[in-house]
């Protein structure tokens, strides 16, 4: 049985090993991803994002329970940050979901950012494809606790949940740009805490101020929850369903969204591959180190060094 066959058949070990190889950038993994692509496109991807400590993992854990009761199979990718000093990481999101680890319908995988920005890892999109090909109905992606700029999740998810807690106060104003603009559903977790109502009205105000974005479109609902007590989770999933229906309701909208997703995915991949290939050639040939030395000794400025290097590279189509 080829790796592709095993993954499509749901073999846990094959899936886990492939995700590892993708993460480690093993070249053979790319070939498997090519084979797997025809089997993707079925799963519904839900992103769960928000600052550290708001309860994302607890929420994902409860969502798993509800989805499994509805007899859906689920894949989970939980992202945690890599230490910028040591390159290591403690991946602790799984702790909150361990009660599902023996459930054959659930696949949970932790991933470290390894220096990648955006709230995800360089391998997240591919890992989503693998879980999709494996046959999971839903894929929940829990991003690294984010601030403002890490919104990569929006490109990969069908529905993005923004999770907040009461008392973020001025932080909400600061978060205006970025994730608050792209959330599909807002969840105020730990809603028993002081300031919950205030937080709800702050978000509502922000949404109302952006009225024209939501005219004829999807107006993000604001929900309260206490994930640890399983309060509000069913309502969150109901809204996810409503959002899914909304996305499907217009073929024009659907194809527009799909177009943007494929366009951005392909452009990221091309950028990534070109840089990696060119840089590795340069490092191997020693040209890169030569350029570094010239700039260090101030014999050349970095802009000229860069242009020299790049213009020497054969362009596609050249002999």
């Amino acid at each position, binding site marked *: 049985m080829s790796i592709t066959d095993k993954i499509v058949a749901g073999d846990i070990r094959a899936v*886990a090993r492939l995700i*590892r190889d993708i993460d480690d950038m093993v070249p053979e993994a790319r070939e498997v991803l090519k084979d797997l692509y025809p089997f993707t496109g079925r799963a519904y991807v839900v992103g769960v994002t928000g600052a550290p400590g708001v309860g994302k993992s607890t929420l994902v854990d409860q969502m798993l329970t509800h989805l499994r009761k509805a007899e859906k199979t689920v894949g989970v990718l939980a992202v945690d940050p890599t230490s910028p000093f040591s390159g290591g*990481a*403690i991946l602790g999101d799984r702790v909150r979901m*361990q009660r599902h*680890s023996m459930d054959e319908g659930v696949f949970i995988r932790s991933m470290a950012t390894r220096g990648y920005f955006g709230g995800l890892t360089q391998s997240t999109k591919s890992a989503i494809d693998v879980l999709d090909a494996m046959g999971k109905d839903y894929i929940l992606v829990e991003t690294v606790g984010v601030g403002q700029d890490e919104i990569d999740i929006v490109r990969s998810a069908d529905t993005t949940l923004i999770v907040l807690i009461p008392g973020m106060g001025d932080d909400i104003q600061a978060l205006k740009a970025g994730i608050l603009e792209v959330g599909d559903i807002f969840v105020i977790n730990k809603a028993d805490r002081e300031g919950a109502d205030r937080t709800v009205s702050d978000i509502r105000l922000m949404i109302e101020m952006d009225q024209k974005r939501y005219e004829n479109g999807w107006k993000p609902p604001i929900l309260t929850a206490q994930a640890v007590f399983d309060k509000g989770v069913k309502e969150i999933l109901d809204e996810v369903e409503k959002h899914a229906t909304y996305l499907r309701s217009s073929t024009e909208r659907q194809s527009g969204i799909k177009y943007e997703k494929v366009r951005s995915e392909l452009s990221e991949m091309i950028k990534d591959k070109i840089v990696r290939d060119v840089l590795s050639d340069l490092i191997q040939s020693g040209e890169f180190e030569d350029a570094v030395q010239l700039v260090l000794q101030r014999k050349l400025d970095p802009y000229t060094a860069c242009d020299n290097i790049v213009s020497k590279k054969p362009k596609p189509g050249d002999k």
Partner: protein
Amino acid sequence: MAKPGLDGHDRGARIIARAYRDAGFEVVYSGLHQTPEEIVQAAIQEDVDMIGLSSLAGAHMYLFPRVVELLKEKGADDIVVCGGGIFPEEDIPQLKKTGIKEIFTPGTPLTEVVKWVKENVEPRSS
């Protein structure tokens, strides 16, 4: 890093986990009160190179070998299993016979634990 059984003291496990992180390893912390089945399932889903079992409550003679056994059953016995915590001296050789590669007792310097892993556990991509 996993804590099988009823033992609820995880400070040691957390300290080791941090030492591993500082050494550049990625550590999946799977928490307290895990059954051997849950630990093995998590290890397979995460495709780890090594499992570290922490036990201070004395159930190691059953729980640790059971983890090794399950890994073999699932065709994942390339995953190295180590143990740490409080063990009677006389249990250690027996544990090693069942397939636990190394046992670290209290007082072992963290540098030694990390060094052992670097020297004895092959990361998959190498």
